[in-house]
């Protein structure tokens, strides 16, 4: 790749400037999911008296762990898309002055967020171990699923960040859409306990639902998701990525004059 060096530097910039001028710095990237976990745990267990699903075959029954194993990958997806939209919009200074492959603005966000996710998942793995699940042997499979998730996230990010250059509504729309998706994805609930058919369908078979369900299978239940499921994720990931890249490359030559 001709601009490998550029991707490296942009990713580094993405990682370094994020928590600049903050005292706690990187710790913030952990506080956010932790505080969400606390809030939802209290609300669901103590207010709604909901109970955590039981891992099959792991037998694990722990709401915070269930919640975190869905939240971290979902956050990776939604933050990657949101930050990418901002990165392309905020890249105006570069885009208007120099010619370079604009998609690297998005890829650098994906790389930086993926590294962040890896760190978070390492912590989760430790927590899982303490809770009784040894996910070490499952990591290669998890990694494959996460690669598909990264491809899927890149595709959506490429599409929306390019469209946002022309219609800034995309940025605001994504704020709402990602919230809706959060509730349409099995993170704070177990689809098996819900009797709203439409939601169960979306949660089980929607793109984000499929990814999170597969990840739950691997790290919470400790079993291999069905071959059909894995195949679905591969197709969704690869197809979304290439479609997103195609849309982005169609639009990016016109970025400079729209900005």
């Amino acid at each position, binding site marked *: 790749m001709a601009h490998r*060096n550029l991707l490296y530097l942009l990713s580094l910039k993405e990682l370094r400037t994020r928590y600049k001028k903050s005292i706690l710095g990187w710790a913030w990237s952990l506080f956010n999911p932790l505080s969400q976990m606390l809030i939802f745990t209290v609300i669901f267990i103590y207010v709604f008296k909901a109970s955590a699903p039981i891992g099959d075959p792991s037998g694990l029954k722990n709401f915070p762990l269930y919640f975190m194993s869905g939240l971290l990958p979902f956050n990776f997806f939604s933050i990657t898309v949101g930050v990418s939209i901002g990165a392309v919009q905020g890249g105006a*200074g570069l885009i208007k002055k120099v010619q370079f492959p604009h998609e690297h603005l998005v890829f650098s966000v994906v790389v930086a967020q993926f590294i962040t996710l890896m760190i978070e998942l390492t912590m989760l793995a430790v927590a899982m171990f303490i809770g009784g699940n040894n996910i070490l042997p499952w990591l290669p499979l998890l990694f494959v699923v996460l690669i598909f998730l990264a491809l899927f996230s890149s595709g959506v990010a490429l599409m929306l960040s390019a469209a946002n250059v022309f219609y800034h509504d995309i940025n605001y729309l994504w704020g709402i859409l990602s919230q809706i998706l959060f509730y349409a994805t099995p993170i704070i609930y177990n689809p098996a306990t819900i009797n709203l058919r439409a939601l169960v369908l979306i949660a089980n078979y929607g793109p984000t639902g499929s990814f999170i369900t597969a990840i739950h299978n691997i790290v919470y239940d400790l079993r291999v998701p069905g071959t059909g499921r894995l195949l679905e994720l591969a197709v969704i990931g690869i197809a979304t990525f290439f479609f997103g890249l195609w849309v982005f490359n169609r639009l990016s030559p016109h970025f400079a004059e729209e900005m």
Partner: protein
Amino acid sequence: MAAAALTVDHLTKTFRLHSEKNNSLKMLIAGKKRNRYEEFTALRDVTFDVKEGEVFGVIGENGSGKSTLLKCMAGILQPNAGSVHVSKRMSALLELGAGFHPELSGRDNVFLNAAILGMARREIAGRFDEIVEFSGLESFIDSPVKTYSTGMYVRLAFAVAINVDPQLLIIDEILAVGDVTFQQKCLEKFVDFRNEGRTIVLVTHAMNSVKDMCDRAIWLTHGVVTGEGDPAELVEAYTEMMLGDRNRNEDGSVRRGSGEIQIERVELFVGASETPVKRFRTSDSIRLRLHYRAEKSVPKPVFGFAIEHLGGATVTAPCTRDVGLLPASVSGEGYVEIAMDNVAMLPGTYDLHTSITDFNRQHEYDNLHLALRFDVMTGKPYETGGLVTMRPTWTIQS
């Protein structure tokens, strides 16, 4: 005939002008509304090429499409029709500064920018010191560039752009913001570049730089090429157009200024003769006489002459303030005379520009551009090149 480093072929670029930026979905959903825009043609059927090793100027008034042209060359804007072909490694500095990330330090931006321009990390590291030294920003290199002044920003951008070893350098208005030292450095660098056979395309409003440095130029008016060729001639035509026909006299001179005191006419005499002439020889003694008339009393006027070679170089530009000749005020009619003995100018055609300004040389009472055109004929000594002779004495030791 040198090969073309850059070819611009029937280039047309239009912009859509929306009444206001309608980057909203409402407009997309409302459908038709988005189509209600006006097309604005910023460049129309522009064709020219730049040869290898040439310094090529682009001139034109504000909004004539110079920056748009350069952006099309750099591949930042997509032409609607026609094409641009660049055969060499190119580095472009567009409209005051390269793309920098404001939050990053100068150091990080140098690496980022050089990476964008296609350099490998090791290559950049090898040149980093040179870049910083050229920019003269050693003590600021680790501060975020958002704290830089406009000039500092441009210095760093320029330092990167020329150190990535480009064969074609595209520059939009950079000399305007640098200080004298930096402008000097840039000019020296341009000369080096030219001597190394590299190509430079330059947009600037500094007409003297165009005349001094460029081998060829084009003149854009409202996106159309109105002239191409010899920079000195183009600059003259352009300056004349900009200053307006209104101020143009029948003898071809151009006048501007507030007019409290006016230059009536300018005469050239040779020796002690009182007959005005238009030519003399090298080593003649001459006098230039500027007749003025002031409607009212003008305090501390400064009279200035400038002799410019047709090629654009200013040979000499004395003014009365330089020698402390400062009348408290002048009114009515009179003349100012400047005598020059044993004139060292070599054969050629020269223009005389004259002006009367206030003491600070800020306010122009009157400025008569091209007040007089005269020829210097072959005299003694004679030299084949250059504008003036230093009356040298030669020795050859063998």
